[in-house]
């Protein structure tokens, strides 16, 4: 087994004439927290969608652990151990918070509909375990006592946390977070950052983030990758990226990069 939990080789995704991901190579070390940044439309979310089976891969390959993800459907990817959250929270709005997490445990469940109808002991035991595990996870993400609320009626911050809780319920090896702090105030952002760090430290989950908030990115990432027009623009430690003129240029344009350079 290699040290990289995820290896992306020459990945290409096209939409008609538009190349959203362009011959991208990427390696994600096991047990790390890494980030992907880049201007709007740089192909970050497309990249996530390729990893999780939402987009079919046009060229290249993605190796997770020992498995190739090419041609897999999202649910198969999840069952292999990759969980994700969405940029614009996608909870099951008309289900309660606890039901959301119970659904999240899907990859580890075995009971069938026939067993359910017959009420076999195995089914009952599993149902009980699912509920206990869901309560535990609710506490873990700080939603104790809110389990019976409909997901859509939870406040925004709670919804973000519930979505992470749902992703954790599948006991993933790799967690993909798409802008987990979007729309949060500084205090909440700090809380979330610490929470992400704990996930890695305590549960040993490898984490890959897409993030706009540079404070978050620079604070917790071990490796930062900058995408632009679907290509890798730069890669390195947060310090290296912060000082890379190409990155500043991509974000702010050429003139700004020169000015920064002159000022420095």
């Amino acid at each position, binding site marked *: 087994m290699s040290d990289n939990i995820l290896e992306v080789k020459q990945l290409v995704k096209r939409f008609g004439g538009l190349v959203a991901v362009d011959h991208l190579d990427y390696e994600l070390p096991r047990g790390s927290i890494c980030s992907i940044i880049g201007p709007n439309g740089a192909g970050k979310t497309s990249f996530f969608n390729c990893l999780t089976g939402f987009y079919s891969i046009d060229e290249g390959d993605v190796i997770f652990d020992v498995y190739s993800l090419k041609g897999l459907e999202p*649910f198969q990817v999840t069952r292999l151990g990759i969980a994700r959250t969405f940029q614009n929270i996608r909870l099951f709005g008309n*289900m309660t918070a606890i039901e959301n997490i119970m*659904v999240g445990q*899907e990859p580890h469940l075995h009971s069938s509909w026939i067993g*359910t*109808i017959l009420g076999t002991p195995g089914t009952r035991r599993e149902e009980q375990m699912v509920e206990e595990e869901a309560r535990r996870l609710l506490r873990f993400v700080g939603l104790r006592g809110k389990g019976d609320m409909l997901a859509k009626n939870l406040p925004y911050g709670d919804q973000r946390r519930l979505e992470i809780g749902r992703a954790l319920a599948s006991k993933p090896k790799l967690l993909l977070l798409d802008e987990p702090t979007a729309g949060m105030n500084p205090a909440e952002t700090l809380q979330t950052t610490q929470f992400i760090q704990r996930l890695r430290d305590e549960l040993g989950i490898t984490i890959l983030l897409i993030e706009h908030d540079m404070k978050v990115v620079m604070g917790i990432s071990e490796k930062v990758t900058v995408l632009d027009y679907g290509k890798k623009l730069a890669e390195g430690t947060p310090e290296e990226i912060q000082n890379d003129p190409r990155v500043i240029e991509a974000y702010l344009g050429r003139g700004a990069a020169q000015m920064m350079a002159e000022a420095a």
Partner: protein
Amino acid sequence: MHENRTLDWRPLLRAGLLAGIVPLYTAAIGMVEVFNAREVVQGLLTLGEMLVIFPSLVVGYLVALGLRRSGSNPLVTLASALIAGFIAALPVTLLVLINAAIPLRGMFVSVTPKLIEILLFEQEQMLTGLALLIGALTLAGGLGGLAAFIPDRFRRALIVSLVVVILSGLLSEFIKQILQQFISRSLLKQIVKGKSLTSQAAAAIFVVTYLVSLFWSTKGQDVKSWYAGLPAAQQRQSRRVWRGILGIFLLLLPWIMGPYLSEVIDNVGLYVIMGLGLNIAVGWAGLLDLGYVTNFAVGAYITGVLISTGPLGIGARLGIDPLNFWMIIPIAILAAMFTGFVFALPVLRMRGDYLAIATLGFGEIIRLLALSDWLKPYIGGAQGILFISKPDLPGLAELLPLADWAPGFVELAQKKGVLSGLLKLLFYGEFSGPQELYYVILAGALLVLFVALRLNNSRTGRQWMAMREDEDAASAVGIDITLTKVLAFTVSAASGGLAGAIFASKVGTIFPNSFSLLVSINVLSLIIIGGMGSIPGIVVGALALIGLPELLREFSEFRLLLYGALLVVMMLVRPEGLWPSPVIRREMAAVEEESEEPPPTDKGTPETPQALHSLWEPTD
């Protein structure tokens, strides 16, 4: 708050005309005339007259209520109510006048002389009649306006008891059917005469319900808190007692109701079975299946072919004994499930609205094939399959020499009465009429109910709901959408097959035209109106949509009109249905609590609870 002393004409005109459309519309489509045949209270009020008068009453009430809330002068308020009632009379007056100038009947077939007679309160002189009509509606508006001045508590009791009187008037035939088994004829005549309530019975019902609801509004809270204060064990016990009473009631129901009403209950039961099945696809899995009749037809036709003793049954075709009804049940269910599975495959990748239209296409394809000459040698074409036998069981009398042991009981079983019918069924095991078939249907409904309850709160149920809420997110948590969808269609089809098998055996003859799109629409309407995803809602929906129209024969002509209107109104005003599922109900209560202070109602625009609209994924 300043007192408003001037009349505000524009909203009055709008409200009045809106209310006036009701009598005009119902008169023009023939409803008034047909409903006029039914008296609600004998010699006092017919249903047809109610259609004409009630809108004015309601609009007067609403106008006055709105004005009182905004603190208007009482006289202005009352005058507004009267004027609204008057305006509401204008459209229908216009109809009468135009018809006098140019007879409309050549085009509008429902504008008959009889209708005009009704609208003119049977007056010979048109002018007197019109004066009466306008006067009555204006007065009704004023009365409604007066009602707005009654203190809250009394007003609520008044409304409740009026509704109860009208309902019992409508259902008086039903009440009569039940009562005649228990009370003497002469007493019955005091209560129900012909098809309507006598005025003294109406008055009695009014007074009693008024007092009860008044009592409940003052003391109801105490009773509730007293019950909540009981120890848990006692509560459980009382619940058990209630359940026991319900069980006995369900067992004796057909003999209490008599054969005619049992037929109605049987139909309701069949639709409950189908509703519970379709609810899996529509309510839980979010797949709008408009071809549910397919499963019903497959169940019925397979039963027909396998147990018919006629020329199309396997008896005559293959020279073997036809199967019996009890063996056919699992076969019909499996056949329907297979159909559900097969028809699920093509629609797996379709978007929600396309899926609906495609399933509708399937339903029609099946019906047209059943009608065609091509398949006629097998399933009879338009003539259908005849001679489908009724279920029977070995009765006690066949198993034991009962006649020797207990001749008294056997004698009892030959008589009429509540117990006798049940005994007869036990002794001879023949499910020959609607009262006996009721038990087959009850068993089927309970079975389906059991399965639905088990699945509701399970891994499978959660998979379906997650898929309904957001297919992509469901896929991202590891749900195999393809399998989940196929399973929803397959399981949902099962109860269609069961209902089809029972139906075929019950009616004895099946024709393709019994399996039209209307069956699908009926089932869909009842689950939507009852409350999507809600199991008690389905029972309520079936009682309201299938049971009521059969009790009120006048309604049957307008059944689909009312279904259509109800579907639209429900979607606009109360998308969660009459009896929403517990989670939705709890959330509604929570939303209501948040907005303690009701905002001043703005009439004309129906309030849409946006929060409850997202039964499925939002548009984008």
